[in-house]
């Protein structure tokens, strides 16, 4: 059963479309990943779903409620964690959480209890009386996330919640997200780190220039690359004999070759089948192989294949 439905969303700034006909649906209990490079339109999309921005065109619904016409009701059931640290730096962690809790209509003992739960969840209960400005980047991120959880939202929108945090804090945040999901919430997660969405998300939509260019489970997306991958070889002596690259290029399933110092990269649509003939060519040319690595298909590769550019510049 889908809880979120986005239908041909368009958002234009001046004549330029930041979001250009985006459609997807999110199943209840899913962690849905929106992956894309800077400027792809992730924040704009999430802003429309959170009712912050009105779309120029298209429609979206959360739990059957239109984000255009029933924004007030949508706001009661969603939690939103913005990309920037949206906290008051001179107030303490607890003061921040209490304030946001009150904005969601919480009060009294329930508010205290929810604040405690959230602070324990993000493991900052001990630091509750410290001002936010004294926190590290990762701790700020965790409170930023916590502020969106107070009212127990059914649908949680997270806009790059791990930007600029160390691996330990990131793991912390991931743990928290899994816990929230296990409690029954549905999550929309945006990121420009493919490893994050690979690890976290049940379903992934890849965005570029305002459009969804691929969508599916991780498995489905990787299948689009076929069984392809990259063979990385280190050869001695450095440099390849003339004509070697062309010879390799001609082998079965090989799609591209590239050399760099004494390294040779061979892209293939089926590395298992390309490997024996490639090794044979090298042997015939008198090249010694000092190391060999096979890279499995990845979202990074898919992105490059789809857009001709790297995910991270």
């Amino acid at each position, binding site marked *: 059963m889908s809880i979120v439905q986005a239908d041909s969303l368009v958002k234009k700034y001046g004549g330029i479309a930041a979001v250009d006909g985006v459609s997807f649906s999110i199943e209840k209990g899913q962690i849905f990943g929106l992956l894309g490079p800077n400027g792809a339109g992730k924040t704009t999309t999430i802003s429309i779903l*959170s*009712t*912050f*921005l009105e779309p120029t065109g298209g429609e979206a619904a959360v739990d059957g409620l239109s984000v255009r016409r029933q924004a*007030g009701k949508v*706001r*009661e059931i*969603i939690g*939103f964690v*913005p*990309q*920037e*640290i*949206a*906290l*008051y730096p*001179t*107030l303490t962690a607890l*003061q921040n959480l209490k*304030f*946001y809790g*009150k*904005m*969601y*209509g919480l009060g009294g003992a329930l508010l205290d209890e929810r604040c405690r739960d959230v602070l324990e969840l993000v493991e900052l209960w001990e630091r509750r009386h410290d001002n936010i400005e004294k926190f590290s980047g990762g701790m700020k991120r965790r409170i930023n996330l916590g*502020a969106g959880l107070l009212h127990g939202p059914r649908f949680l929108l997270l806009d790059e919640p791990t930007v600029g945090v160390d691996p330990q804090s990131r793991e912390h945040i991931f743990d928290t997200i899994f816990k929230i999901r296990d409690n029954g919430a549905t999550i929309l997660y945006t990121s420009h780190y493919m490893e994050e969405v690979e690890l976290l998300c049940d379903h992934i939509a890849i965005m570029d220039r305002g459009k969804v260019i691929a969508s599916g489970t991780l498995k489905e997306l990787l299948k689009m690359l076929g069984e392809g991958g990259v063979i990385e070889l280190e050869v001695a002596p450095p440099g390849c004999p003339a004509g070697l690259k062309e010879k390799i290029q001609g082998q079965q399933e090989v799609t591209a070759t590239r050399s760099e110092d004494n390294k040779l990269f061979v892209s293939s649509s089926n590395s298992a089948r390309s490997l024996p003939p490639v090794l044979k060519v090298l042997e015939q040319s008198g090249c010694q192989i000092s190391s060999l690595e096979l890279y499995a298909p990845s979202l990074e590769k898919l992105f490059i294949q789809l857009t001709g550019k790297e995910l991270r510049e």
Partner: protein
Amino acid sequence: MPAIKKLWYVTAKDLLIVAKDRGAWMTLLVTPLVVIVVVSFALSPIYKGGSLHATMLVTNHDAGSLGKQLTDALAASPNITIQPASDRESQTLKQSGSSSGLSLVIPKNFSARVQAGERVQLQVYEDPNSTTSAPFLKGMIDGAVNRFSAVEVAAKVAVAEAVEQNRQADASAVASQASAAASAQMQNQPIQTREQPAGGVKTLNTFDIETPGFAVMFLLFGVMIGAEGLLEERDKGTMGRLMVAPVSRASILGGKLFAQFIVSVIQITLLFAVGHFAFSMDTGSSLAGLALMLVATAFTATSFGLLLAALTKTRRQASSIGILAILLMSALGGSWWPLDIVPSFMRKLGHLSMNAWALDGIKGIIIQGQGLADILPQAAVLFAYGSVCFLIGLKMFKVRAA
């Protein structure tokens, strides 16, 4: 009901932020107090006797007693040295190399003509370039001469009454008798010029003038900081977070403005309180009137802050445009010098600023001793002024950055 509650939570949150912000209190209270104290002490000679010593040239052509009495009355002030001078010296304001800001020429038969009830003109020469001592000295002459006129009027009334009561009496004898009595009384009570600087009603404490002026200016700086905070809240995402929570735009903006209004009321009240308790600034006789003026001023300032935030896109813009607007309004509106001394078209222009209306009302109470009813027009104009700013600001302020 929940909307009002949430509005109040926003207010309480903002008040908490201001309360914890030492820098804000520095700008809201400490800086203005330093400026008020420095300016008040520096300018005190202009408004009261203080340490001003001036020389006035006096040419007395009068053979009677009144000319001498007038001269003596002026000389009685510890701040003035009277120098007898020739006509020429008085006209050029120069005597043996040194110059003076003002001179007075008492005409021939001054006493006789005054006693005969004629209008007599005293000739005053002033240095057009002197901004401080000339107005001050002129005020003292006015004061002394006013006393004279009062004595003469009293004498005439006495004459009229005497004539009424005793038709047989010789009117002119009564008149000279009364006049003589009045003159005698004047000699017993030498003119207290220090009580009547610039012909005013009461002794002015410089703090009476400077505290309201600078308090209003720094109130505007306070709301400018508030406007920057409003833009920052919008751009830092906290407002975005509120916008997607179940809270109305009215509660968010209303709560923030209410907090700013409370801060403004506290700020201006504390500035006046320090002026009063530490520097004996007069608070007039109508505390209700003063309170109404301060509240009206704080309201209008808050609305000005909203308008500033609405008309600018970024914090930087708000502060650069804000500083320009506030300095302009303060200069035009009488925060730096009383509008009584500026040309009348500048005074009219000045009343485009909220400062002028606020200061008219506040000074009416603390300097002119007016009551609540007297300042209602100024309070009404301020509320109208503030409401217009408020409505335009509310309509134009964008909760989403462009």
